[in-house]
C-alpha cells in the first residue's frame, strides 16, 4: 500500500511528520518556560515545590519528543542529521548540554545530600529553559537564513565558519526566533501551571501566573513580529526541477501565497495563542488557556516548518555553497526506508492516544500543595 507511493510523496509525508513532532515539541516547551518562571512566580518553598512538581510530571514528555525529533530526522533525512549535527557542532552540543543538566534536576533538586544544592538544580532548569530554547530557535532560524557548509561529492560535510554553528546566534533573525520561542515557552508555561495546579491555598501564585502569561506574551510580540516581517521580505533559497538551488527574492512570501492554507495555519495559530493568553490573563477563573496556546503554537510551528521545506524550497540552505543546500528531495532516505518507516509511523496515533489518556487520567484532579507535601516521590 505505502510501497506504491512515489518517493516525492514519501519525502513530503516525512517532512510533515517531522514538522508535527517538532511542533509538538514547541508546545511541550511549556515545561522549559515554566522552569524559567520559577524564581519569578514562586515566592515560598511551598510554591516552588508546587511549580516544580507540576512541571515535573511532564518534563519527560518534552524530552522524549525532542529525542524523537532527532531520531525521526535521522531516519528520514539523514543528510540533514549528518550535515547539521556534525557541522553546526557547538550549537548542538550546547543545546544537548542544557538538556543533560535538566534531566537530573527534577529528581535531584530536593533530595538530601545532592552535592550541588537545590539552587544549582534550579539554575540548571533556568539555563535549559533560556539558553537551550534560545539556541534551538537560532538553529531553526538557519532553515531560512542559511548556514556555512560545503558538501563533497561523497556528500561529506565541511563547515566553513570557525564558530561551528554558534554563528547562527549572531543573526538578528535567528536570535529573534530564539527569543520568541523563549518567551512563548514562558507564556505556555504560565498557562499550563494555571491549568494544572489547585490554587485554593495559594491564590497569589495564581495571580502572578496569570500576570506573567500576559507579560511573557507581550515580551514575545516584538520578536515574532520581526521574524514574520523579515520572513515575508527576505530572499529565500529556491530549488528548481533539476535540483539547482538559487536565491529567490521574497521566496517565503511566495511560499505562503502559493499555499494559502499554510498562511491560514499561521494566522489561526497566532489567533489561538492570543485567545489563550486573553482567557488566562483577563479572567480569574478560566484555566483553558494552555489548550488554545498549545494548539496555536503547534499550528505556528507547522507553518514555519512547511514554509521552510515545501514548495521547492531548500530547508537547510548553505550560504557558502548554494548547491550544497539540502532539500527534502536530496537529503532524504531511500524509498525503501521511508516506506518501512511509514509503516512504523502508523503507530503514532496510538502513541498519541495513550499519552492523551494518561495525561487526562493523571490530571483530572488539580495538583494540591497537600498532595506534594505528603507524596514521598515528590520532587
Amino acid at each position, binding site marked *: 500500500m505505502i510501497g506504491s507511493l512515489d518517493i516525492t510523496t514519501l519525502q513530503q509525508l516525512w517532512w510533515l511528520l517531522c514538522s508535527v513532532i517538532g511542533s509538538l515539541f514547541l508546545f511541550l516547551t511549556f515545561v522549559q518556560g515554566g522552569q524559567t518562571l520559577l524564581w519569578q512566580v514562586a515566592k515560598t518553598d511551598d510554591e516552588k515545590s508546587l511549580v516544580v512538581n507540576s512541571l515535573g510530571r511532564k518534563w519527560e514528555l518534552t524530552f522524549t519528543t525532542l529525542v524523537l525529533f532527532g531520531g525521526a530526522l535521522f531516519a528520514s533525512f*539523514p543528510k540533514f542529521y549528518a550535515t547539521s549535527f556534525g557541522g553546526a557542532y557547538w550549537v548542538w552540543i550546547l543545546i544537548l548540554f542544557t538538556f543533560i543538566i535538566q534531566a537530573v534536576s527534577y529528581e535531584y533538586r530536593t533530595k538530601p545530600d545532592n552535592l550541588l544544592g537545590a539552587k544549582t538544580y534550579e539554575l540548571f532548569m533556568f539555563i535549559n529553559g533560556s539558553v537551550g530554547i534560545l539556541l534551538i530557535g537560532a538553529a531553526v532560524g538557519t532553515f531560512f537564513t542559511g548556514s556555512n557548509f560545503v558538501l563533497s561529492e561523497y556528500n561529506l560535510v565541511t563547515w566553513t565558519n570557525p564558530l561551528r554553528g554558534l554563528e547562527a546566534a549572531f543573526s538578528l533573525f535567528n536570535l529573534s526566533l530564539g527569543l520568541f520561542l523563549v518567551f512563548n515557552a514562558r507564556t505556555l508555561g504560565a498557562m499550563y501551571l494555571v491549568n494544572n495546579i489547585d490554587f485554593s491555598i495559594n491564590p497569589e501564585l495564581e495571580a502572578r501566573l496569570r500576570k506573567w502569561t500576559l507579560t511573557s506574551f507581550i515580551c514575545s510580540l516584538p520578536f515574532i513580529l520581526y521574524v514574520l516581517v523579515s520572513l515575508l521580505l527576505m530572499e529565500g533559497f529556491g530549488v528548481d526541477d533539476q535540483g539547482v538551488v538559487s536565491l529567490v527574492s521574497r521566496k517565503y512570501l511566495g511560499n505562503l501565497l502559493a499555499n494559502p492554507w499554510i498562511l491560514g495555519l499561521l494566522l489561526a495559530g497566532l489567533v489561538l495563542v492570543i485567545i489563550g493568553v486573553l482567557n488566562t490573563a483577563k479572567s480569574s477563573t478560566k484555566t483553558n488557556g494552555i489548550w488554545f496556546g498549545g494548539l496555536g503554537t503547534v499550528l505556528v510551528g507547522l507553518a514555519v516548518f512547511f514554509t521552510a521545506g515545501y514548495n521547492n524550497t531548500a530547508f537547510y540552505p548553505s550560504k557558502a555553497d548554494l548547491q550544497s543546500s539540502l532539500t527534502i528531495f536530496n537529503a532524504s532516505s531511500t524509498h525503501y526506508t521511508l516506506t518501512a518507516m511509514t509503516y512504523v509511523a502508523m503507530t503514532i496515533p496510538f502513541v498519541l492516544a495513550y499519552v492523551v489518556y494518561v495525561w487526562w487520567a493523571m490530571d483530572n484532579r488539580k495538583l494540591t500543595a497537600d498532595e506534594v507535601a505528603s507524596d514521598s*516521590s515528590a520532587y
Partner: protein
Amino acid sequence: MIENVDLTMVNWARAQFALTAMYHWIFVPLTLGITWLCAFYETIYVKTGNEEWKQLAKFWMKLFGINFAIGVATGIILEFEFGTNWSNYSWMVGDIFGAPLAIEGILAFFLEATFFAVMFFGWDRVSKRFHLVSTWMVAIGSNLSAVWILIANAWMQHPVGQEFNPDTARFEMQNIMEVILSPVAVSKFTHTTSSSMLLASLFVISVSSWFLLKGRNIQMAKRSIIVAAVFGLLASGLTIFTGDEHAFENARHQPMKLAAFEGLYDGEKSADLVAMGIVNSSKQPGDSQDSFSFAIKAPIPGLLSLLANRSLGSFVPGINDLVYGNTEENIMGAAEKMEKGKLAIEHLALYKKAKSSSDENSAAFALATFDANKEFLGYGFLENPEDAVPPVGLTFYSFHIMVFLGSLFPLVFLAYLYFTLKGTLPEKRWLLGPGVIMFFLGLVSTEAGWVVAEVGRQPWAIEGLLPVTVARSNLTAGTVQATFFMFLVLFTVLLIAEIKIMTKQISIGPEGN
C-alpha cells in the same frame, strides 16, 4: 583505555564515545533490570493486598527513579553524538541506522516517559490495576528501547540487509527484517537484557545485605532477596546461554574479535580455551614471540573450538590467519582484502568521474570493478594489514573478567536462596559482607562486556565496510577534546551527586515512604 589515546581527532572522538557510553551503561542495566523487580513486587502487593509489599515496591522504585534520571541525562548525548562526532558515518549509513533509533523513540521511549509519571505520582490518582499496568509498561518500554538500540548496534557489528549505492556514496537499506532479525541482534539483545536483570538482582542483594548486616528492615530485606535471588538465578542461566550464543555469532561474523578476546594468534584445530593469563604486551602479529607471558588453559581440550564452532575438532582462525591469510583453511587475510578494498575505492572515484563527464562506458566498467570488490570497501582505507587487529590485551582481559564474574554470580544467588529458605541468612555474615559489593562486581562485569564488544571490533565503525577513521566528523582534535572534558567533568559531578543521593536514600530506608 583513555591514557593510551593519542592526540588525533579520531581517537578523541573514540574516547568521547567510550566515555559517554560507559557512563550511560553504569545506569542503564540497573534501569532495565530493576523495573521488572519493581513490577514483580507491586504485582505481589496487588495480589495479596499486603501494604508492606507496596512499601517495598515504592522503596525500590525510588532508587530506580534516581538512577533513571541520570540514565536519561547520559543517554541523550549518545543519540546525537552519532551526528556530532561521526557525521560521515551518519550520512553513509543513516538510511539504515536512523530507522531503529526513530523506532525506539516511537515505540519505546513514549511508553517509558508516559507511564513513568503514573508509576511515581499516580498511586492516589489512578486505580490500583491501572497503576500496576503502568509499572509493567515502564518495564516493557525500557526493555523495548534496549531492543532497538541493540539492533542498531548489532547492525554495525554485522551489516546485513544493505547495499552500497555509488551514486549517493552511501549504504542503503534493502531489507529491514534482515536488520531486525539478524542473529547477531537477537543474541546481543537477549544477552544484554538478561545480564541487566542479573545486575539489578545483584543490586537488590547488595542493598538488602547491607540492611541485614545493620540488623534493620529484616523482613523487607528478606522479601526483596527471595524475589531477587530467584530472578537473578534465572537471569544468570539466560546470560550464560545467550553469551555462548553470542560468542558463536562472533566466530561467524567477527572472527578477529574472537581471536582477540582469546589472545589467539596462530589458529588451530581443537583450539584450547585460555582460562586465565597475562598477555605478552610486546607481541605483534607475525612475530615469533609467545602470545602470553603466563597462561592456564581450560582442562578440557578443544573447548574454544567448541565455543566458536560447536565442534571440538574444528579450526579456529587466529589473528595471524586473519591478517596474513591462510590458504590451507581458505581464509583471506586483511592484506589481500586491502588490495581489493583499494580497487573498490579507486573505481568508485573513477565511476563518479566518468558519470560527471557522462562517459557511460567508462562508468559501467568502473562500476563493475567496484561491485566485484565492494565487499572489502572498508579494508581499502587501512594503511597496514595489522591495522585490522583490535587492542588484544584490553579485549582479552575484559572478556575474561566478564566470564569469570559471570560464572561467580549464579553461585551467589544460589547461596542467598538456600540460606533464605533455611531461614538463616541474617546470621551468615561471611556471605552478607561480600554480598554488599556484588553489585559493583556486576557493574565491572557488564562494563567489561561492552569493552569486549566495542574495543574488540576496532578499527571498524561498520564491520569490514567503514573504519572509524572514515566515519568521523570533520572537526579539529581540539574541539572534540574540549567536549570530551566537558562531558567528563559534568558526568563525573552528576555521578558523585547520584551516588550520594542513592546512599542517603538507602540509609533512610523504606520508612522514608
